[in-house]
């Protein structure tokens, strides 16, 4: 493109050959710019993935006979995977996070959408103030958010339990039946700001004339939001939903921190990643942990695929 336009000007002798030569050189130079990234990409993505798959085919076993000399690593084929598929604890954790994501993602999307729509309907001066407020949670690092909410939930230091107690609700945020609600709330709190921003940005790109036209036709604000604004932000909503699902299936930080306060409820196999983490670092089952990782990747891939299909069919835009 640009190269062919340039070459004839600078050229004197054999135009065709030199142009081709020049184009090839440019291609190589262009590719060279991407080399640092792709080198790192191979080192940090491809090799670890391949290595994990390779490791998942082995097992460490106590060396027979002497007993004291340690372990040998032997090739076991797909034995580790067979074990994964029969591992009730892993799949229980998996079903926990899948159900959790299934319930929480619509809630997250609905809240972020509501915030964005309200912001879009507000006067300009109010927008600035509220948008800043809505973004405060996004400025809080994930671990800090989790720690903070745990203190807020705590009956000893937090304001929530006594206040609920005063109005007659006996809440224990760390009880097993409340735990996912507690975790869900803190995740919603931590993420709605960013999600709201993405949706709000998309709302701003809706042509304003559409609203005027709808108003002239007698549409109410509700109707405008439902029939014009929401369809317009379908793409960003689907994207936010997808990223949220992928994030929630890998949930780790929050359960890990809740484990500090209620270890009997949040067991060490509570979520898939927590399970893998404990297999790898507490039980020293590297090979099994590698197999678990691969299976988890496949599950996430499958879930993303199904979600993508559904989101696309629904939107079809």
């Amino acid at each position, binding site marked *: *493109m*640009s190269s062919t336009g*340039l070459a004839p000007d600078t050229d004197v002798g054999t135009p065709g050959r030199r142009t081709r030569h020049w184009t090839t050189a440019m*291609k190589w*130079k262009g*590719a*060279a*710019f*991407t080399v640092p*990234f*792709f080198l*790192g990409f191979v*080192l*940090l*993505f491809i*090799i*670890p993935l391949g*290595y*994990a798959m390779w490791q998942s085919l082995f097992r460490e076993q106590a060396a027979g006979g002497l007993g004291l000399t340690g372990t040998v690593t032997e090739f076991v084929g797909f034995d580790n995977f067979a074990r994964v598929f029969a591992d009730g604890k892993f799949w229980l954790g998996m079903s926990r996070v899948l159900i959790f994501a299934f319930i929480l993602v619509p809630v997250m999307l609905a*809240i972020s959408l*509501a915030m964005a729509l*309200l912001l879009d*309907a*507000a*006067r300009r001066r109010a927008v600035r103030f509220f948008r*800043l*407020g809505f*973004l405060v*949670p996004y400025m*809080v*690092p*994930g*671990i*800090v958010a989790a*720690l*903070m909410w745990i*203190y807020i939930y705590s009956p000893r*230091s937090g*304001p929530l339990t006594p*206040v609920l107690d005063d109005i007659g609700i006996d809440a224990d945020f760390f009880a097993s039946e409340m735990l996912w609600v507690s975790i869900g709330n803190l995740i919603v*709190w931590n993420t709605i700001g960013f999600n709201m921003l*993405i949706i709000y940005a*998309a709302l701003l*790109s809706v042509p*304003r004339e559409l*609203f*005027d036209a709808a*108003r002239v036709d007698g549409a109410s604000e509700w109707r405008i939001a439902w029939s014009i604004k929401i369809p317009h932000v379908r793409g960003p909503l689907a994207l936010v939903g*997808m990223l949220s699902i*992928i994030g929630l299936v*890998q949930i*780790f*930080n929050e359960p890990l*921190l809740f484990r*500090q306060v209620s*270890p009997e409820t949040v067991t060490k196999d509570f979520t898939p990643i927590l399970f893998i983490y404990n297999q790898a670092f507490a039980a020293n089952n590297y090979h099994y942990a*590698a197999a678990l990782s691969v299976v988890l*990747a496949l599950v*996430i891939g499958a879930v*993303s695929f199904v979600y993508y299909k559904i989101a696309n069919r629904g939107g079809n835009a």
Partner: protein
Amino acid sequence: MSALKTSLKESPPAPARPVRKRRSRAAEDMPVGHGQTRRSQLFTLAGLGLFFIYSVAPVWWLITAATKNQRDLYADSGLRGLWFSDFNFIENLRQVLTYDDGIFARWTLNTVFYSGVGALVSTLIALAAGYGISKFQFRGRRIAMGFIVATFLVPGMLLAFPLYLLFSMLGLVDTVWAVLIPSFINAFSVYLAKVYCDSAVPDELLDAARVDGAGEVRVFFQIVVRIMTSGAATIFLLAFVGSWNSFFLPLMMLRGSDKWTLALGLYAWAGKRAETGTDLTSLVIMGSLLSTIPLAIFMIAMARFWRSGVTLGSIK
């Protein structure tokens, strides 16, 4: 209001025109507000207010809690927890900064270092890669782009464990590199850089520079990087925030507390109560507040950039 009046004055008596003009002016002032009933305006404000309280109240609690000593923290239960008691902020600050030979300052510096260096290097690598993919027609660039987008979907945590195995083989575990190197490579940054480069860097300018005899490296550093400053700032910002918030990777890779990040340190402090019975709650609260402040200031100061990044990412 004054704009409205002048527009009325200026407009000639033709009956239909002024009305339309007034509308469009008013619309500029309040995007959707005009034509709304009072009731729906009130509803909007009430909804905004509720979400505002939900967003801000927990942080407000953190701020008030950081000013209390541990006794007041536990004594002020209920709504009293949302207001100040004895002002102990300075004392808490002193405790956080001196506990365990001032390890907190060390963690802060580590976090700034990991995030700063990581974001800087990854931004440079991403700009180069994005530029290469955007402006050169080499074979495999489509596949490359496909790979990059596909990695958004590959869960980061999933790679973390195999990466740990690899790094332990290379002897990098529990070194600074174990946290730095993974932060250098960021597929989302490359994607953003490519999108920016597509829209911001004109081909003609590059060709002109080449005609003038500038080498490719010079074209990149003196033209492309300069034009893409604001895009680069967004990429840097998002990478910085991502590193600042990262927890799983440092948790796996780092053993010695002198290399820890703030998140890791706070996690360890919070866990002390369960492990050894030492209650460091007021330290954790103060530390949480302290670790949030730099990030908040940084983000507010650069709000312009990351807003544009988010918008761009969502459109494509």
